[in-house]
């Protein structure tokens, strides 16, 4: 019989204690798994959506809000800026590329983004079907949009005013789907892209009283914000200051705001981590008590094993192996449970059309989970194993 098998039998000879310890360890490890996955996924989602955007220029307001609305599309924009002011920025020698973003309408909760071809190019997006827009009022839908709304190439739909569902419908001008993007995991999956002109057209057609009014509106055309790529990293020092001090707009650096945001989320994950730590500590203590009482209970049995010729290290190994079994089982169950909760979270976020996180990914950070499980098992079994190691066979002969 192998020590591994024997320790398995001994472990389950007390099913209640083993089950409780397994549960505690699993809960602790599942929390750790979840926290690790969430921080990794959110960081990754942010970094992916950042995709080399050096600065975001928009109306004055909270820079964080500007980034959240313009880059990640999870917040309302700060306002609009005049088209002419953005055009001015294109002439700035430090700027390599300006990508216009016009927000304001949505379709069943998915944002309609007026932009240029540079925007899908920024994320190296590819088309699953159809083509990019060739004229205003043509739209390209992201993969999640296509999946959840059933839109396909050739379909028509009307945008609704506002970024949430249930806004007033712009029934006069219909969008026609010209293409569907392939899933990329980026923010594009949950956006509807169209030419900037489409957005203007929808609102002007809706509000213009006559041709003259239309002309006036055209002169006052606005964008919501612009994504900027620098020519050289040096621009990061001077460009935002230049925009903030000389124009009516503000420039925000996404990298900076993301760091700020992550550190705010970090407080939350730290609390979760501490909670998981307490759970693990409790589990460790519980395993320790179980093994300790097992050694006490089976003292004579273990002494007999010594009498039968088992060297002390074999007896200690038996105890250690029992703890390792618990660690192994809890590690597997904890990882699965953590991934399960993550899958639910991913599903919920997708339903809310928020940041896209993927379930069942195995980032390298998860190595921490088996390492912790092993650590807890070793720490909890060290003293019981030592006690088992020291068991004297002589006690067996003296027990009267």
């Amino acid at each position, binding site marked *: 019989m192998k020590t591994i098998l024997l320790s398995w039998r001994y472990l389950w*000879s007390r099913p209640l204690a083993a089950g409780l310890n397994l549960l505690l360890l699993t809960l602790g490890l599942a929390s750790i798994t979840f926290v690790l996955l969430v921080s990794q996924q959110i960081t990754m989602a942010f970094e992916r959506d950042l995709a080399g955007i050096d600065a975001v220029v928009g109306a004055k307001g909270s820079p964080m809000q500007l980034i959240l609305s313009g880059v990640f599309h999870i917040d309302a924009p700060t306002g609009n800026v005049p088209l002419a002011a953005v055009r001015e920025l294109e002439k700035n020698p430090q700027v390599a590329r300006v990508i216009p973003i016009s927000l304001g309408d949505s379709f069943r909760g998915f944002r309609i983004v007026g932009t240029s071809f540079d925007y899908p190019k920024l994320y190296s997006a590819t088309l699953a079907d159809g083509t990019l827009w060739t004229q205003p009022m043509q739209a390209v839908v992201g993969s999640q949009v296509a999946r959840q709304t059933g839109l396909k190439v050739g379909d028509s739909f009307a945008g609704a005013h506002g970024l949430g569902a249930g806004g007033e419908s712009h029934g006069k001008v219909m969008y026609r789907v010209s293409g569907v993007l392939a899933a990329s995991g980026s923010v594009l999956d949950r956006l509807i892209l169209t030419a900037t002109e489409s957005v203007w057209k929808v609102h002007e057609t809706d509000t213009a009283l006559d041709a003259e009014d239309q002309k006036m509106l055209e002169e006052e055309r606005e964008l919501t914000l612009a994504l900027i790529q620098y020519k050289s990293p040096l621009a990061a020092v001077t460009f935002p200051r230049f925009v903030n001090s000389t124009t009516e707009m503000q420039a925000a650096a996404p990298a900076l705001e993301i760091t700020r945001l992550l550190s705010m989320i970090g407080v939350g994950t730290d609390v979760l981590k501490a909670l998981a730590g307490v759970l693990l500590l409790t589990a460790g203590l519980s395993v320790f008590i179980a093994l300790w009482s097992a050694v006490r209970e089976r003292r004579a049995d273990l002494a*007999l094993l010594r*009498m039968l*010729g088992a060297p002390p290290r074999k007896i200690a190994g038996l105890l250690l192996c029992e703890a390792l079994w618990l660690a192994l089982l809890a590690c597997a169950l904890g990882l699965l449970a953590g991934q399960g909760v993550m899958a639910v979270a991913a599903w919920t976020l997708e339903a809310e059309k928020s940041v896209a996180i993927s379930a069942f990914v195995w980032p390298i950070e998860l190595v921490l989970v088996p390492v912790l499980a092993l650590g807890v098992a070793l720490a909890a079994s060290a003293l019981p194993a030592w006690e088992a190691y020291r068991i004297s066979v002589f006690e*067996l002969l*003296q027990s009267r």
Partner: protein
Amino acid sequence: MISCRQLTYRYASGPELAFADLEVNQGATLLLTGASGSGKSTWLALLAGLLPASSGQMTVAGQVLDQLSKINSDAWRARTIGFLPQKLHLSAALTVHDNLELAQWAAGQTTDNSRIAEALTALGVQDLSKRKPSQLSGGQAQRVALARAVLLQPEVILADEPTASLDDEACHAAVSLLSDTAQRLKATLVIATHDSRVKKYLEAVSRPFLDIKLASMPMNASVMSYKINSDVVANLPA
């Protein structure tokens, strides 16, 4: 064969025990009686290589015990000594078969199922191999424990109080069983007990045996020496 000469053991904070010289031939029976505190447990521990002698020499089955290192003594004990503890100590978590397998595990041997079946059959408990110890009667449990003790075909069978809390009939059966098993394996049988019935039943199974009574001994006292050959032991006065 068991032989000991000028054997003493001194406890770190206690008396020194001196033991009688004795020689027991291979296959003979040694009955070790004496009140508690007389050194029975100590002598058994010395015999099993669990304690090192303070002075003198103990030879068991051709092995001089003080020449064994601590690690070797475990392997040696597994091969040489079959131990039947008073409380049997069958592992409650395991079946009868697995309890025997445990002995092979402890000895560092690979599982040998045919050997286990053989040992159980020899003691007439082969049908119980799938039961847990809690499902055995007292007598059955003792047979299983004895099967475990003789599984590795030891040269010495050590029975510690094998008849405690048994009624007369069961006591008789236990002694016969031990004696028969030892005879079958040609093993030296050592029975340590304070139960006076054991002697009576040993006489009844008409096996020559050596009867040693350990008395509480003063410091450094030497007790009488016995030297018995199993062929002639039956002729000696009890």
